[in-house]
């Protein structure tokens, strides 16, 4: 049995070899901290079958699949990666061959997002670890990607995840990290919308936005896969589609258009100033978004939800008529999604129009019109 007891949290996690365990909690609750502790990269106690794992850790026993597969790959293809691993460990290439199928020799960068995660998971499994740790495996995946990945998740896995509904379909036991404490919870409570809302978790249905009678004032024409659509004042136009369908490319085509402010997926790559105040530039907007106490902080040090707020704040302060959001729900917990809903309503009240790309069904109630890229 793997037992992890992080110094920064109260309580511990236990994982048997024949079960899949889920960890849930809000952004910043300590899910990644816990996983890093299990890898002896944070302070805490880790034991396997009663033996201290962190004394000369043998990483053949614990495998890790991070949220971002791109930074976990050294080889060009899965076959390549297996050959590299075989220079250091005994490797069973049958597992990755089976999990990757015809994609075994396809270059990593040409794989779909679901298969990229399969790539990392299958190469990790090839070493035959006793336990696997997965940090937000379903983040940024569309339905197909999730269904591609789910069957590859095996017993002995500890996974931290925001997408509660999808995760509890594969987990046997569940833990909640709340106020610095690790608590084991019953699966049924994770199906209770009020429990999810109370604990800032995702999975509850979002109340649709009541849109006023739509305005005829056209603010932007946008080309989506060759067809032209017109965005009107006070409208939230959602562009849905699979990973790789061309949603982000559509938004990129708007770069440089006057009156359009685009917020892409990775907030860290979009801060060009030292403080939140310099980024947003408008004290009134900071107050409106409840960010005034963070004005002097570096935006890079904020939680994911707060980073999104800073970017939206700079969009509001720019006085742009149209705000475009690329997968805004990605990496957000339930509380942050509710905040996103409030901010959207605020934007619409101010007469702004919104374009949003998403493959996340949780936030479609925020859309007044949906364009599906098939």
């Amino acid at each position, binding site marked *: 049995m793997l037992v992890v007891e992080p110094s920064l949290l109260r309580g511990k996690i236990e994982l048997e070899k024949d079960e899949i365990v889920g960890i849930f909690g809000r952004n910043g609750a300590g899910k990644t901290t816990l996983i890093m502790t299990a*890898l002896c*990269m944070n302070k805490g106690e880790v034991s396997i079958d009663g033996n201290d794992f962190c004394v000369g850790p043998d*990483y*053949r026993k614990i*495998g*890790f699949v*991070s949220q*971002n597969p*791109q*930074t*976990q*790959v*050294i*080889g*060009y293809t899965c076959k*390549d990666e297996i*050959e*590299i*691993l*075989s*220079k*250091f*460990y005994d490797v069973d290439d049958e597992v990755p061959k089976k999990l990757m199928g015809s994609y075994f020799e396809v270059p990593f*960068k040409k794989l779909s997002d679901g298969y990229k995660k399969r790539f990392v998971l299958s190469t990790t499994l090839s070493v035959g670890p006793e336990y696997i740790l997965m940090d937000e495996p379903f983040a940024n995946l569309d339905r197909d990607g999730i269904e591609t990945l789910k069957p590859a998740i095996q017993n002995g896995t500890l996974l931290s995840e925001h997408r509660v509904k999808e995760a509890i379909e594969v987990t046997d036991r569940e833990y909640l990290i709340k106020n610095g404490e690790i608590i084991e919870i019953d699966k049924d409570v994770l199906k209770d919308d009020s429990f999810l809302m109370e604990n800032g978790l995702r999975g509850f249905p979002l109340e649709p936005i009541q849109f006023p009678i739509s305005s005829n004032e056209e603010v932007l024409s946008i080309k989506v896969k060759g067809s032209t659509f017109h965005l009107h004042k006070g409208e939230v136009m959602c562009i849905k589609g699979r990973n790789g369908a061309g949603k982000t490319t559509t938004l*990129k085509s708007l*770069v*440089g258009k006057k009156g359009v*402010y*685009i917020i*892409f997926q*990775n907030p*860290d*790559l*979009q*801060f*060009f*100033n*030292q403080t939140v105040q310099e980024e947003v530039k408008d004290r009134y907007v900071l107050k409106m978004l409840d960010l005034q106490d963070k004005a002097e902080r570096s935006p*890079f040090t904020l939680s994911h939800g707060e980073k999104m707020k800073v970017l939206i704040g*700079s969009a509001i302060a720019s006085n742009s008529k149209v705000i475009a959001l690329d997968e805004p729900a990605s990496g957000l917990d339930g509380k942050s999604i509710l905040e996103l809903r409030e901010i959207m309503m605020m934007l619409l009240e101010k007469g702004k129009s919104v374009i949003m790309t998403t493959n996340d069904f949780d936030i479609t109630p925020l859309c007044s019109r949906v364009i599906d890229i098939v």
Partner: protein
Amino acid sequence: MKSSFIYVFFLSVLIYLSSLYDPLISFIATLPFTRKRTGIIEVLVSFISFLVLSFFHRETFFSFTLRAISLINLYFMSSQLTDLKSIIDITKGKATPVIVAMAYYPFFYETTLEITTYARARGIKLYRVDKLLLPIVVLIVKTAEDLYTTVTLKLSGKYRGNFDIMPRRNDIIIIAYGVVILCLSLSLRF
């Protein structure tokens, strides 16, 4: 097409030698290994350099421009052609930083391009290096942390491969390419 590090290194030496005799040939020889956009920029830079040097009657210095660009391209070429497994074998598993640097060059390149797109979307001029550097530095630090984890977990076992010097088909193709380029430079020079 991937090839053993030792033969890619050999190709680089041959192209470098070729640049000493005819920089234009070596420059053209490295162009197919650069990305399309990089290649176009390099050709433009060379052209502008030629015009400026011609204006000041210093055409002889143009060979330095071509040689410098060729040397940069040799790095790109090596990253693209080298089979990382061969570096592991040559260094008996001790060249982890080299492996990581070569494996992540495309990742950094693509992310830096993304950052410039985001900067344009914010109306930030691309000469504001102070602004552009901020997300790039954060990216480097974060990626370094992730890579440390990856390398620690994936390559911490005891190396037990072996180095095979016998050239394979791809190795022979690139050696031949290098020899042809050098011969061409020499034949045009003498």
